[in-house]
């Protein structure tokens, strides 16, 4: 089969559509064409209360967020640091609210 510019362009187009269909928007992201899904906004930061010696754990790991959520937290009292599973849906809330301290 003779390779012509028209055939080359057609094949490239078909390949691009096929790869985009099969690979989802990951392909668009690799090409730098995916939209930015970052959500600018504020989210309250609730300071967890570490469990002291002899106190009952009101929640596992001092997590007040509720365990059965899509994205939850754990608190490190030694560093006053909250580790957050920001999870999964491709959009991330930018945390901007200060703790007020």
């Amino acid at each position, binding site marked *: 089969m003779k390779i012509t510019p028209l055939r080359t362009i057609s094949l490239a187009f078909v390949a691009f559509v096929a790869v985009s269909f099969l690979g989802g928007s*990951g392909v668009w992201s690799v090409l730098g064409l995916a939209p930015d899904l970052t959500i600018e906004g504020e989210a309250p930061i609730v300071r967890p209360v570490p469990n002291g010696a002899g106190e009952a754990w009101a929640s596992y*790991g001092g997590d007040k967020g509720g365990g059965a959520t899509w994205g939850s*937290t754990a608190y490190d009292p030694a560093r006053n640091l909250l*580790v957050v599973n920001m999870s999964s849906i491709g959009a991330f809330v930018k945390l901007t609210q200060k703790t007020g301290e």
Partner: protein
Amino acid sequence: MQGARYGMTRGVMMSPLGLPCTPPPWGVIAGISLNMGEIVWRQTIGTSQDLAPDGLAPKTGTPNIGDPMITSSGLVFIGATMDDYLRAFDVSTGRELWKGRLPAGGQATPMSSEYDGRQYVVILAGGHSSLGTKQRYTLVAFALPD
């Protein structure tokens, strides 16, 4: 429910290749300093190893369900991802330090306990129907070598 007029299902919207339809990263864990009120590190969790049929494993993160656990020594353990691993991160920097293969999805919160002078990290690897990870009834314990 049989006979009901409406039903509900939830899951991750996937392309025919088995990858999520939103742009990566598909899963992120972050450390937030409560002294500064700022995100001090951010790290993708998971690869597409168990998603894409070709087994390629770029570090894209994956959709995930599960909570982290922090040890007093400064390690963050978390399963949660759609590739079947339990991972450990440095709580100060977010650097991934280790991962251990699980026999099924680790959509559960890990726990740690000491037994007979040895420290164990345990996770229930049961999988999750919404994520479509492998489902089994397995309890997996990791420990440092003697």
